[in-house]
């Protein structure tokens, strides 16, 4: 399995204190071709996501591209969590994630066995993408993809900026650019200074062979957050 294949598989973190419900959600997600990790508490979820107390104070994420503090071991594209859990509720988890500079962009979905309108609005106001009533079904799971796709697209837009940082460190990539993009390289540097995402994307896509360079950028993109 090459990087390209791993890149196209979404990874969902499911949080629920009920073993039966964890089995269920895992099966639902796997049937929909997602990679799944299940944990039984909000604190374990934060641990898995690489959350640290410092995240809340460390709001400038620019310098964190090489910082080990915010490095996620595995990329998570969506968190789906039960609302009612002992200790940290799903709402608490949602709140913590939204307060964290490194985690706030991960879409969160809440599940609950109880249909309490004020609970639902509270979660949505805090930034939850969806609220599912339990028992969760395949039709619910099919609503997850757009939220995960949106996050992936955002990551794509960031790629050119990462390229600028990585050119200094990645000799291989630089030599590929030199071979294939001799004319465009000066303009690429100036485009980077302009911070114009759209232009950079176009100049990158035109000359570079996708299968050689795109997978590499994806791998680097994960680290940049």
């Amino acid at each position: 399995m090459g990087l390209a294949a791993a890149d196209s598989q979404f990874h969902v973190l499911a949080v629920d204190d009920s073993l039966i419900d964890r089995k269920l959600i895992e099966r639902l997600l796997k049937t929909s071709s997602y990679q799944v990790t299940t944990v039984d508490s909000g604190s374990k979820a934060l641990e898995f996501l690489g959350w640290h107390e410092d995240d809340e104070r460390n709001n400038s994420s620019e310098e964190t591209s090489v910082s080990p503090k915010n490095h996620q071991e595995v990329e998570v594209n969506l968190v789906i969590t039960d609302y009612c859990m002992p200790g940290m509720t799903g709402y608490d988890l949602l709140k913590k994630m939204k307060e964290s500079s490194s985690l706030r962009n991960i879409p969160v979905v809440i599940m609950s066995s109880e249909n309490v309108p004020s609970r639902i609005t509270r979660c949505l106001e805090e930034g939850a993408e969806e609220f599912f009533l339990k028992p969760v079904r395949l039709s619910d799971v099919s609503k997850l993809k757009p939220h995960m796709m949106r996050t992936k697209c955002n990551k794509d837009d960031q790629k050119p900026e990462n390229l600028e940082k990585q050119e200094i460190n990645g000799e291989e990539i630089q030599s590929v650019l030199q071979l294939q993009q001799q004319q465009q390289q000066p303009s690429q540097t100036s485009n980077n200074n302009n911070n114009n995402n759209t232009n950079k994307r176009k100049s990158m896509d035109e000359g570079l062979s996708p299968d050689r360079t795109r997978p590499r950028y994806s791998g680097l993109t994960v680290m940049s957050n």
Partner: protein
Amino acid sequence: MEVDQLQRTFHDYHASLFNEGFLDEQFVQLQQLQDESNPGFVVEVVSLFFEDSERLLNDLSKALDQVNVDFRKIDAHVHQLKGSSSSIGAQRVRNACIAFRNFCDERNIEACLQCLQQVRQEYLLVKTKLEALLRLEQQIVAAGGASPM
């Protein structure tokens, strides 16, 4: 042919469980999640439900037996049981749990004891039925048929 007969028996029994309200649509959802790559999924989840329920029923028994009954704890246990029965489609157990929680709110020990009995009864009924259904499935597969699940 034996397999055909078993399949028919399974089909009729399966239908009756729904008609009599023991199981609801959620159980069908479970069946849909079972396939060749995950042939034991229904058995697995149902077994977990049995273990979970027995543990919770014991805990509820003990909790109601205390001198000072902790209704919040009891409510938490019933909430869990309601959740797991709902997740596998055990409709009558789930409904019994809902009734139980209402009496918890009223802090009515006598009523709670009766509810516990009711929940336990419904649980034992659905357990017997599910075990019979799963045994039928086993027999079909053993006789060379495809799982009707």
